[in-house]
């Protein structure tokens, strides 16, 4: 196969990969946007418990249109469902779980990820518009594993995986793994270690789209 003949993974491909990598029994918070897709891609025989910042453990599948409980929303303010075994609690207890290291995993989006795990995903500048952070800083500082789902580059082709973040940080040394549309990368003491990549993509090509040195296991 020659250089350039590769097809990036689609959103659902990425969600499926993330879902397949979540072990049974993990407590997982899915960020708004892309990460939400992961909920539908957990292997059917595997129990994973989904957490929402606003006081829910045990979120279930999207409700059927005629079965919506409007008293139940997730962190994205969307109506959701509960599974048997779900629990409801208040915001301080919810973030005690997050900050106290009780969640196994959060899956978030990113503007930039640095090779030391620094994450920038909350604002591109304090001046560009109304600053807003939500729960991103708590999640990335508190959860044991922080996985990022993202395109490998911006729409303009700028690398999102970098030596050092240029955008304001959400948390330092937080990210443990990146699932991009081109590769899966662990964040290690050495920096980014590629563990999987799109078929047909060469190491040189992936390096050109990444602003930090890539390592291979």
């Amino acid at each position: 196969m020659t250089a350039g003949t590769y097809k990036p993974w689609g959103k659902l491909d990425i969600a499926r990969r993330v879902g397949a990598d979540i072990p049974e029994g993990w407590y997982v918070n899915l960020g708004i946007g892309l990460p939400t897709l992961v909920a539908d891609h957990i292997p059917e025989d595997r129990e994973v418990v989904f957490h929402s910042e606003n006081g829910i453990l045990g979120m279930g599948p999207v409700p059927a249109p005629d079965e919506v409980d409007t008293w139940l929303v997730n962190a994205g303010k969307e109506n959701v469902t509960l599974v048997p075994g779900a629990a409801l609690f208040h915001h301080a207890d919810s973030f005690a779980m997050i900050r106290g290291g009780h969640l196994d995993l959060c899956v978030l989006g990113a503007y930039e990820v640095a090779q030391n795990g620094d994450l920038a995903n909350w604002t591109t500048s304090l001046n560009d518009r109304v600053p807003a952070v939500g729960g991103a800083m708590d999640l990335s500082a508190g959860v044991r594993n922080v996985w990022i789902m993202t395109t490998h580059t911006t729409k303009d082709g700028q690398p999102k995986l970098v030596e050092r973040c240029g955008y304001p940080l959400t948390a330092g040394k937080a990210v443990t793994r990146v699932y991009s549309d081109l590769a899966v990368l662990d964040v290690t003491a050495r920096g980014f270690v590629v563990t999987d990549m799109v078929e047909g993509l060469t190491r040189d090509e992936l390096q050109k789209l990444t602003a930090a040195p890539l390592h291979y296991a």
Partner: protein
Amino acid sequence: MIDKQVEDVAQALSGITDGASVLVGGFGAVGQPNVLLDALGEMGVKNLTVIANNAGFEPDIGLGRLIGRGCVSKMICSFPRGSSSFDTFYRAGKIELEVVPQGTLAERIRAGGAGIPAFYTPTGVGTQLAAGKETRTFGKRDYLLEHGLAADIALVEAWEADRWGNLTFRGSGRNFNPIMAMAGRLTVVQAQHVVPLGAIPPNDVVTPGIFVDRVVHVPCGDPPIAKVATAQGGTK
């Protein structure tokens, strides 16, 4: 006889004056004390400092409406997006904003209610939101000093209330409401149902009445339907 129930919303809000700090419960469309917020706006109070997760949503409902009326001079919140009222006032320089990470906001409010003046948290270390804050190392990790956050008033929406002010919440309506009830020097509750004392079993009381000052019966019905969860998500 202890009876915290008041006859109407006007009585529930009596005594609230210009410059008050106000905790406002709710997350998304659930657990929002919108009837209290509307009445507060109609009272014409000014220069409120409002502490809430968001800065309202629709311009004609609840906190969005209160801001649109020019009653709020400062917002302390985690995610002030999705509110056209707030946007307008913020861009015009007419409203001050303190952005606080959602978990730090929740913990500051709980601390304010629990007599804890300050605590350390790992959230926000090394970020722009750490500006001006003390950083301190415990073990091998850095933490920020954050302060408890109490307020003059807390506005809460509950599912059930009794005359002692014991409360329950429905679905995700718990959210910030119980901790705000703790942190309000005057805590005012709009309750969907007022039930006899003893109707809520002792194990099911979520907010004990000790945290509640006034209860007003507001059977305002179900929240509006929200977006149904999809991959494209909403705002935080």
